[in-house]
């Protein structure tokens, strides 16, 4: 499925513009659109939501931000390395539980619990990834799924530590007392202060991942995505790099999970159920996995859609399925792939 989708997109984009790789196209170059600092604007808008958006929109924005990081971390595997993981929620879950357990059970401050969540997820990714990268394609995907179900089973059954089916409710927010005397920020509700912290941590995480994707390491991952056989014959130790990608992706999924546990004031076994892995994969493909900003856009679209049809909650899986169908047959490049194609057409029309 994935490889077919990918090929279609590339050819489409490539035919239109032999000039630059797809990932750098939209609004690129000298156009007005290309010169607007989009990331800064999005960041500032996100930061202002507690003041201009009210409680409910802040809630939605936080959900979107966390899902965006989760989806971008998955895309490091899917879009960058060409690894289809069906169990990415495992690392999200490990992060959520590590942070939650440390903060609730052991009263560890957030400033330590948060990095620990990333570290915990990284370690689990190292161990599970060691086995997963030995397999290819469907077998790889199945093994990632198996590991995520193991995490789910542990979360569900290990009452003493994870709270079992009761989960870990009422995880305390980090302490923001030190903000009390800061103008603007001191007057906010704790949940809004935590929202701002979330946005900041996610912005930093995304900036780091962006840098990694553009680094030599990231370039090597794209050679593995395109052609693992050939990658080996330019001297790449394919399995080692796949494992490294797996660990990096797991780490950032762990950060996303840690934030999610605090955001929703509790960690429950549901969070690590395998259907979450499917959901984040749909976000990634919906937004466009050939683009760095595809997964965040997919997260935005899916969260927004979900709350639009929230009155018909029982139909959500139906909508999800319908979206997937439309995507696979109509827009294999996702939202950004579609926008990109439209953009290229407009430019050619203007030039002609």
């Amino acid at each position, binding site marked *: 499925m994935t490889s077919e989708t990918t090929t279609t997109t590339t*050819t489409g984009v490539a035919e239109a513009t032999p000039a630059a790789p797809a990932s750098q196209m939209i609004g690129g170059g000298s156009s007005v659109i290309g010169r607007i600092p989009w990331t800064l604007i999005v960041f500032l808008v996100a930061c202002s939501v507690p003041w201009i958006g009210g409680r409910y929109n802040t809630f939605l924005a936080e959900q979107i931000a966390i899902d965006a990081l989760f989806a971008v971390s998955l895309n490091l595997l899917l879009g960058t390395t060409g690894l289809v993981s069906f169990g990415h929620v495992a690392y999200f879950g490990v992060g959520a539980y590590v942070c939650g357990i440390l903060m609730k059970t052991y009263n560890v401050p957030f400033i330590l619990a948060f990095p620990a969540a990333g570290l915990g997820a990284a370690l689990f990714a190292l161990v599970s990834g060691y086995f997963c990268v030995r397999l290819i394609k469907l077998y790889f995907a199945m093994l990632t799924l198996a590991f995520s179900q193991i995490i789910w089973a542990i979360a569900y059954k290990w009452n003493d530590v994870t709270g079992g089916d009761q989960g870990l409710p009422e995880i305390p927010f980090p302490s923001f007392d030190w903000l009390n005397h800061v103008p603007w920020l001191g007057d906010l509700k704790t949940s809004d202060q935590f929202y701002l912290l979330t946005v900041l941590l996610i912005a930093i995480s995304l900036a780091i991942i962006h840098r990694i994707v*553009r680094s030599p390491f*990231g370039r090597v991952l794209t*050679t593995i995505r395109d052609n693992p056989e050939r990658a080996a014959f330019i*001297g*790449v*130790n394919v399995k080692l790099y796949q494992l490294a990608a797996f660990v990096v992706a797991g780490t950032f999924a762990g950060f996303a999970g840690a934030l999610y546990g605090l955001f929703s004031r509790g960690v429950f076994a549901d969070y690590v159920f395998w259907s979450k892995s499917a959901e984040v994969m749909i976000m990634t493909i919906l937004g466009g996995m050939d683009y760095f900003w595809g997964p965040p856009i997919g997260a935005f679209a899916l969260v927004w859609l979900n709350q639009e049809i929230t009155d018909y909650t029982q139909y959500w899986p139906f909508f999800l399925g319908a979206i997937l169908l439309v995507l696979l047959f109509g827009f294999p490049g996702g939202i950004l792939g579609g926008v990109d194609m439209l953009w290229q057409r407009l430019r050619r029309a203007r030039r002609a």
Partner: protein
Amino acid sequence: MLEVRGLNKSFSGFRAVSDVDLTVETGQIAAVIGPNGAGKSTLFNLITGHLRPDTGSVRLDGRDITGAAPHRIVRMGVGRSFQRTNIFAKLTVFENLQAAFLVHRGRGRDFWSRAAALYRDDTERLLASIGLVDQRDTVAGTLSYGNQKQLELGLALASDPALLLLDEPTAGMSATETHDTIRLIERIAGERSLTLLFTEHDMDVVFQIAQKIAVLHQGRVIADGAPEEVRADPEVRRVYLGEH
């Protein structure tokens, strides 16, 4: 330079390569020829670590490399191209070659620099050398077949090999393309004093540039020597050259 001894490989009982001995001297241009299914590609795959031999040994400059992982063999100075072209389809031509340089120079572990800014000069020079300057920003998957073969040659050259294995470098090319490609290969092999081992169906090409030819038939070497010897060999004439 390359010494293959008693190499065997079976695929579920079928012996694709059987008791093959082959030596290539440093600086030599050697060809392996044989009819379809003779085992030429399989032999290349065994030498480069893509397949593991059942028995036998492969030595490179006296070092045993039998069954070593491909990325290790590449790092020991062996480059190769594939019969069915193998490139990085979603990257541009420039990015393809740049990636090969990054890996060869050991920068793959660098998580922080901007890849696009590295080894630009080396990449430009290699682009010029393989004649793909005009296509530098084309997405590799959309290149013509002949250009993809050129790019593949470039990928192999970026890791600065001492021994280069080319599996049918002109397969599927027109007569002019074939001619140009062979010129290109000859020139580069000369400039870099490469040792070259290639397979080819076009006998004109083979006898034009090979200094030594091994003939493979049903997995076995039936003749091995200078072009004139091989051309005169009665068995070779019977099983192979007769067909052409």
